[in-house]
């Protein structure tokens, strides 16, 4: 079995020690960091995402795989910086003001990191101002908002309003998700996209970034 395949396998079984050792080995074998990331770590995490979506595995398996992935990423990150390879994108995520639910949004964060994004997780009960200030400060391309309560969904519209006031519509893309949220609601408030689950959210963010690059 080639080393990248071994990385994928060890990542899926959540063995962080092994992923770290194998990543090191791959670097020594002069496999490019990008290839290790794409064909090893991201590939493995993608399989985990699909299995989770199919209910074959549960959250603990995803969390263990994520820890293993971070172990490999930690070794690759300095090389990316050194070689000046840009990360594919920066995403600010959080659960909106008044809402205290965390699990779904954290899972989106894990999946985004697993796909190679840099993720700034603001936690729960995040005010519109905090979302936008952080995105501006960090130069993020996407804001991901989650709400699990119907009473807090309208806060998403407040974020859109503030974004409009600041003239940032289209510059910072907005994706929303959470149990009560829908495609229709995204359209209604003028958000750029809706992600119906953590795997779909990653696909959608990738699309958003691809499209936004066309306009830059």
């Amino acid at each position, binding site marked *: 079995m080639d080393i990248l395949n071994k990385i994928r396998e060890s990542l899926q079984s959540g063995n962080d020690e092994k992923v770290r050792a194998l990543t090191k080995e791959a670097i020594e074998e002069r496999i490019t960091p990008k290839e290790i990331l794409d064909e090893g770590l991201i590939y493995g995490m993608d399989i985990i995402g699909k299995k989770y979506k199919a*209910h074959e595995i*549960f959250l603990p398996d995803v969390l263990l795989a994520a820890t293993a992935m971070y172990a490999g990423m930690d070794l690759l990150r300095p090389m990316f910086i050194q070689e000046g390879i840009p990360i594919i994108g920066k995403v600010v995520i959080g659960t909106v003001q008044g809402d205290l639910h965390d699990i779904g949004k954290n899972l989106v964060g894990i999946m985004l990191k697993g796909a190679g994004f840099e993720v700034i997780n603001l936690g729960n009960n995040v005010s519109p101002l905090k979302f936008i200030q952080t995105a501006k400060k960090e130069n993020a391309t996407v804001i991901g908002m989650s709400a699990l309560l119907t009473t807090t969904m*309208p806060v998403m519209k407040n974020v859109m309003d503030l974004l409009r006031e600041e003239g940032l519509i289209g510059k910072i893309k907005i994706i929303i998700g959470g149990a009560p949220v829908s495609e229709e609601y995204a359209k209604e408030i003028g958000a750029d996209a809706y992600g119906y689950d953590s795997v779909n959210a990653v696909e959608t963010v990738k699309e958003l970034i691809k499209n936004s690059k066309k306009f830059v």
Partner: protein
Amino acid sequence: MYLRLLLKMGGRVEGLLKRLKNGEILVSDGAMGTMLMERGLGAGEPPESFNLTRLPILHEIASLYLEAGADIVQTNTFGASPLKLSFYSLADKTEEINRNAVLAVRKIVGECAYISGSCGPSGKLLEPYGDTSDSEMYDSFERQMKALISADVDIICVETMTDLREATIAVKAAKTVSSSTPVIATMTFDPIPRGFYTVMGINIEEAVKGLTNAGADIIGSNCGNGIDNMIKIAREFREFSHLPIIIQSNAGIPEIKGNTVVYPETPEFMAEKAKELVSLGVSIIGGCCGTTPKHIRAIRKMVDSVG
């Protein structure tokens, strides 16, 4: 009505389990979080901050549920374990937050209802998939239990758990602090193609076994995906357990209606469906997200009419 009053007079704590054993059905209260949001819960603020600064609102909510006919009224302490409070730098206020919550409900309900000390997830994940050790988790729950029990709470309610290990640690902490305080333990299950599982991968049979072994007196499920699923969940609990069962459903999966968002299940609908819970032998019926004093009133009416 007279009978109910009479039964309530005979010793709070011993009374509860005996009443359930005798086949009585009790009604617990509805949502807390949404009530607090309607009453000014601000950005970046934990619901438990009301216990420090806005006690009259806790009095108001307790009296709404008491008037609606709840036999069991919960404290506003879902996130009042020091681990959870530490997200808001309030861990050092653990004792005050828990104590105030119990006293606030007691002031309203006196001896007319049981006070259930709510204890939700820590917000932290246990090792190896998280960074919290079993003993840290235990210490955190123990501290909350001590505060609740020393304020003379009647019942401990470990609720909305998805990780069975975390749930059993909380139940054991409660039982260690006071072996005579009845402990309710509920978990939240989602329907997936192969049955009901928590997000952490626990099914109902595993939950029953784990919670029972940890020492829980009453077990069941809360929150979830509406009353229809809760009926199925209750049936499975009944199949695997002889302990009294508690079901606290939310009022369905929220929907958008025009500009506002609503929980679809009306008080009448839930109460009608809850008849099935009664026929399954569920001992305590109450509400979760989206349920209001109106839901509790309707459930009370139904329970009184069948009982």
